[in-house]
């Protein structure tokens, strides 16, 4: 009874630096803006027909609490009849929101769903309210390192000595340059929903671009940054994603429903997989999850023409590329840059990968398959394999 699941559209708010652009804006207002912007772009979708609204947040309290999925649906002005729920898989929240509603669509329970995520890391600093079970350390289930993401990135450098700080910095620089070029070409702006942002001291503004990118970055500047996670370390604020605020939302549908409504299909889901690794090297998660997903799809890594890999840390992307024998600057990987440049509001990032991939599919009809993948705290990876609906044959 499995049905084809497609992405019809995906959008996001511009991302901000924590404590800056959206310091006076609520997290729920961000996700509401993304949802309203998404539906405004897709007037053929009758809000009444939305079967569910799955919204992810890594911290589910305050303005990200109250069942953020249902709350966002109500605040967005969706009919009362449209339900909603919350998703948490830390950084892979939105990615999991998409796979979860996709499962529901594939088995025929849903036709139309909204999946997305929000993270206001200014309002909810990482680690807010966590209460790790003392058994973790007492029984050595994980080492202390595993709970601080920066340390897990340093651990990856230890594990893969060929990935040097210089390589990580160069990767980071490239991400900034690719993002700058994509902005120049007007690619990124296409999926940004202008978002009102208030600062009590400065007044209202409307954000139309991401705040985090540093297009002027140089290798020298990156080399000079401190390594906050350990003395003499390799992970710096320059080769890692920052602390950010933002929201994303995707319209996920049964392919037959999208065709019936005459909607454009942006990406067709092939399969997906999540997999675990040692929590101490959580950044390595995309490797096993991608191996698993490829196996399910009956594809090999050579079949993949576009990669959207979340850049929590440069080292973590490089460990993935190295495993699969892909060059650090392979043009198939993150062609418009990644989280190191635009930011990583944790649970929202999954849909950002998807919307970037969809733009890549549009630009590359010769590509048949692409993947979106990301690492997840406490040692996991998640991968979705997508088929390009624009594929016209070729390699």
């Amino acid at each position: 009874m499995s049905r084809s699941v497609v992405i019809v559209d995906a959008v996001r708010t511009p991302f901000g630096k924590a404590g800056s652009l959206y310091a006076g804006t609520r997290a729920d207002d961000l996700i509401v803006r993304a949802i309203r912007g998404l539906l405004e772009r897709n007037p053929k979708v009758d809000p009444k027909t939305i079967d569910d609204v799955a919204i992810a947040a890594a911290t589910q309290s305050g303005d990200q609490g109250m069942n953020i999925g249902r709350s966002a649906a109500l605040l967005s002005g969706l009919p009362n009849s449209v339900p909603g729920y919350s998703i948490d898989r830390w950084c892979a929240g939105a990615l999991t929101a998409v796979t979860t509603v996709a499962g529901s669509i594939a088995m025929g329970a849903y036709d139309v769903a909204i999946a997305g995520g929000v993270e206001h890391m200014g309002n909810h600093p990482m680690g807010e309210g966590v209460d790790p079970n003392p058994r973790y350390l007492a029984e050595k289930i994980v080492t202390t390192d595993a709970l601080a993401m920066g340390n897990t990135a340093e651990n990856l450098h230890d594990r893969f000595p060929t990935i040097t700080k210089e390589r990580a910095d160069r990767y980071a620089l490239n991400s900034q340059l690719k993002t700058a070029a994509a902005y120049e070409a007007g690619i990124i702006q296409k999926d940004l929903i202008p978002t009102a942002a208030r600062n009590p001291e400065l007044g209202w503004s409307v954000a139309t671009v991401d705040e985090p990118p540093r297009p002027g970055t140089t290798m020298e500047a990156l080399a000079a940054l401190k390594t906050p996670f350990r003395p003499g370390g390799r992970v710096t604020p320059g080769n890692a994603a920052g602390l950010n605020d933002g929201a994303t939302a995707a319209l996920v549908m049964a392919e037959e429903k999208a065709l019936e409504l005459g909607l454009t299909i942006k990406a067709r889901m092939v399969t997906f997989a999540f997999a675990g690794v040692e929590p101490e090297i959580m950044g390595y998660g995309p490797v096993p999850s991608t191996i698993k997903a490829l196996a399910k799809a009956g594809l090999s890594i050579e079949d993949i023409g576009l990669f959207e890999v979340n850049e929590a840390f440069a080292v973590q992307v490089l460990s993935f590329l190295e495993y699969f024998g892909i060059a650090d600057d392979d043009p198939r990987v993150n062609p418009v840059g990644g989280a190191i440049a635009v930011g990583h509001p944790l649970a929202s990032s999954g849909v950002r990968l998807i919307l970037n991939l969809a733009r890549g599919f549009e630009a590359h009809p010769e590509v048949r398959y692409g993947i979106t993948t990301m690492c997840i705290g406490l040692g996991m990876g998640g991968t979705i394999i997508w088929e390009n609906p624009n594929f016209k044959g070729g390699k």
Partner: protein
Amino acid sequence: MATEMIMPEGAPEEVVTNALVREIDLAPFSANGKLALITLDNGQDHNRPNTFGPKSLMALDAAITDAAGRDVVAVAITGKPFIFAAGADLSALAFLTEREQSLAIGKLGHDVFRRLGTLGKPTFAFINGLALGGGLEVGLHSNYRTLASTALTGLPEVFLGLIPGWGGATLLPKLIGPERAVQVIMLNALANNTMLKAKDALKLGVVDAVYEPADFLEKSVQFAASVLNGSNKIERADYSNDPAWESALATGRAAALKKYGGAEIDAPNRALTLIASAKSNSLSEGFDAEDQALADLTMSDPLRASLYAFNLIQKKRKKVEGAPKPALGRKVARVGVVGAGLMASQLALLLLRNLKTPIVMTDIDQERADKGVAWVRGELAKLVEKKRMSEEAARRLSLLITGSADQQVFANCDFVIEAIFEELALKQDLFKKLEKIVSPECVIATNTSSLSVEAMSEGMSNPERVIGFHFFNPVAIMPLLEVARTSKTDDATTATAVNIGKELKKTMVITKDAPGFVVNRLLTRFMGEITDAMDEGTPADVADNALRSVGFPMSPFELVGLVGPGVALHVAETLNKNLGPRYRISPTMQRLVKEGVRTFYVKDDSGKFVPNPAAVALMEKGDKPSSAEEVRMRALKALAEEARMMLDEGVVSTPAEIDICMLLGAGWPMVLGGILPYLDREGISEAVSGQRFHPAGVASL
């Protein structure tokens, strides 16, 4: 260029509304260039709206200069969350001592606001929340306006005794035409400051577009971009040759005369003149005329009285003078209403809607009790029909109200109020019976209008739980509640009663248990002078019209028609017995009641009110007629005399309590300050008792 001005001595420190400027890139909205957005924000939450005093105006002036000087294609202005701006900072107005100061503040507002209309770049007001008076005028000066769908707007100046004097009286008629401008500036303001809902503001043309609050700013920027890139063309009509000018102005004038019972009141008259001028004047001429009108009105006693009354109403709504701590009040989970007549049923409905507790009504037989319950349920059904209550809410409340012929149903009540026939012996008997049924803590309240509450509690074993709870007709609408304490009423009882009054959303005045309390005592004394004059031989129309110029909402005989001669006479008789012969019993009134003639006026065939021949025939015809002026003076003097006596007797603790009673219980207008500021400024207070009620400056220049 705007020049800074210094506020007068004694004026409270201005809460400055800052004006912050940021730029928004219009490219994502399909227009070229940038928009400078000015945010009005006084740094406080929505409970303290943005307002404009001199410093705020200078801040806006600086922001406009800043915005206009930037490399932008347009300038827009918006507010802080939920609030655009609530208009001029009224707190300083009462401290202006020189006409020049008043003129200067009017001019300063014009000088700053009008820059928004003459900037050389398109200007937009994104009215994201409440916009009143000067707040809306900021929008009217701008070239285009968007409005949040939940925001209320309006020009309440005429309601306050002012005119929309920062451009509104000139700009609005030119923008939306005479009929609609009269609706907003005159009719709405005079209808107790009715504000515009967003859909009405859009329909009237006050704004160009309405957007939901969730993405109001984004949509407003989109709107601006669509105007700037030419895809959205907003057309403005020219109303200078509109055929409706005369009829619109006549409608406005009629509304003002009706509101003030035929009196010529400055504020509405000046507003009408300004609206009329807007037919053909230039903006500069209009604004200059507004400045003059504003200065004249600001430096007038009626405006000062009006501001006093406005502040008094705000203050008294929150704080009940002399009320014990609310925590002393007892929980009220079940309420009894003795009687099931119309008054009792109205009380039951009001209590039911607000307290949402079980309510039992009793009457002498089950049929009457059932009739009362049925009336209440019928009213609930009407509310559902008018979509003012959900079916579920009505169902819930309908189940809570029951009726019985057996007073034992009051056994578990925490609060019982009686509204039976106004006769002391009956009520005394009732209270003694009730005491045997209810607990010793149960509050027993009476809605008597003129009998002694203390006398009702005589002989009771727990007289400390008896209190007067006097509503005004119609009880659902009239905002005043007189709470009368006897010498024995304890604090727990008073606190319980006041807590209930708060739930009923009434403004309360605690009075001593004195005959007629405040409103009926003053009204009856006043009426007595009119009927007296008539009985002495003054023609009825002369007597009745003698006070037209004051501004009372209705003439004395219109008032009698409303309350009914029977009730009026009954109260007069009670006060005559308890307060003395200055409360006279009019033989005319006695005859009217005896013959069942209810009104002094009837509608003739053309629908006009004319003297009722049946009433005229019954009038006492004395041989000592008075002139209108004599009638006016004796009536006003009687008010001053009675008010002074009430203060001396300690019926209420301050003159302000008397004013709030007359404002909210009798509907007397704010321009009179209730009544005492008017008696002060007419010299009547001093003539009667050698002293004013309010020190000069409190409710006067």
